[in-house]
């Protein structure tokens, strides 16, 4: 096949991302930058949101929990969408890195969904008068959390990594039908939860001084996702490839190779496995 010789740079980059030996150091170089960018967005977002933004005309200072609740809820859906895209790549191209990405994203997404649900309950009690109601928005977000947990459980329940990855990708893809339901639940049905504020087609119905910190926090959460995702993917890669060539090469290449109690380089016994 001549296809490989005339590969476009984009495709080449895509295939490189799929190779652990290239991905691992690449992600490592990206990590400090993402961490710094996260703090750079988070600190002004928190300051503007918690101190600078004016109190709401109806909810007073209570509305400020929005700066955690809304980005967490957005991210819980964004992470799932990214996982679904990855699931298509994993199932069509059989790329293991895409499975690692889903596996690493699921706990992060579940965390965001949990934060959205808990902060929503804390917000709901004083404003609505109830911690929890079974309206369409809250229920569909709870289902999203359960889907995340189901994905994690399914992967860990199957012994063989390849079939576990395939089953997990398929479940991820099927669960994507829940995303439009969450988003449009406040439009399709009567709910206690109010409608969309920012993602309306006309101008957002929120004062500009309140909107800017919200967008900053949303960007910070998104960068945080990228940061933790790379951390988790590196950890999962190391764990799965512990006995593979590229991990050993890295260990032997580094001067601070981990030693076991006999003073030998750990894991050397597996060299001729």
């Amino acid at each position: 096949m001549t296809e490989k010789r005339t590969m476009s740079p984009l495709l080449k980059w895509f295939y490189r991302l799929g190779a652990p030996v290239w991905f691992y150091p690449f992600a490592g170089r990206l990590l400090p930058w993402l961490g710094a960018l996260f703090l750079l967005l988070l600190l002004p977002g928190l300051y503007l949101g918690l101190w600078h933004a004016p109190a709401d005309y109806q909810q007073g200072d209570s509305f400020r929990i929005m700066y955690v609740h809304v980005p967490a809820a957005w991210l819980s859906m964004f992470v799932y969408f990214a996982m679904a895209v990855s699931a298509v790549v994993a199932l069509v191209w059989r790329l293991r890195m895409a499975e690692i990405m889903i596996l690493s994203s699921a706990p992060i997404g579940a965390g965001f969904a949990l934060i959205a649900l808990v902060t929503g309950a804390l917000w709901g009690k004083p404003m609505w008068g109830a911690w929890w109601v079974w309206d369409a928005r809250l229920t569909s977000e709870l289902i999203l959390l359960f889907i995340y947990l189901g994905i994690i459980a399914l992967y860990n329940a199957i012994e063989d990594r390849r079939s576990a990855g395939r089953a997990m990708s398929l479940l991820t893809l099927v669960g994507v039908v829940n995303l439009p339901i969450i988003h449009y639940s406040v439009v399709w049905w009567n709910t206690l939860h109010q409608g969309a504020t920012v993602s309306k087609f006309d101008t957002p119905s929120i004062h500009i001084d309140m909107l800017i910190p919200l967008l900053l926090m949303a960007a910070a959460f998104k960068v945080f996702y990228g940061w933790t995702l790379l951390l988790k993917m590196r950890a999962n890669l190391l764990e799965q490839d512990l006995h593979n060539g590229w991990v050993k090469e890295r260990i032997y290449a580094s001067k601070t190779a981990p030693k076991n109690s006999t003073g030998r380089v750990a894991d050397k016994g597996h060299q001729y496995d």
Partner: protein
Amino acid sequence: MSPVRKKRLYTLMLILSAVGLAAFLLLQAFSENMMFYFSTSEVQQGKAPPGRDFRLGGLVVNGTVQRDPNSLKVRFDLTDGAAKVTVEYRGILPDLFREGQGIIANGRLNAEGIFVAHEVLAKHDENYMPPEVAHSLKQAENNAIKTQQATP
């Protein structure tokens, strides 16, 4: 894309659209039950279930809130702009409860057509603004109404 991958992609698209269709039909079938509350017009048209609990949503009509001085009993009218329903409630109201506010009450209709609630939830809208902006918006609205009345 190689033919094998193309085939896999089509299979996935088929699965996804089948699941999507199933979800759509399921939600269509459940759509009545997915409604969190009935509007006051629906209650007046007799669509609400008689003799059992349901939720009623609407705006509190200005000037109809009557509090019993000796107990927590409160009485007010709800409207959706077309029909009015009187609600009776005994208990603590949420912070956002006030005249003109959207609320959702859980309870049932009694023989006189009064909605006896055992739970009152406040619904807030998707607008966020400082009090000064809300105040000036309200003034602008009042002025607009006045000029409308002045020019017949």
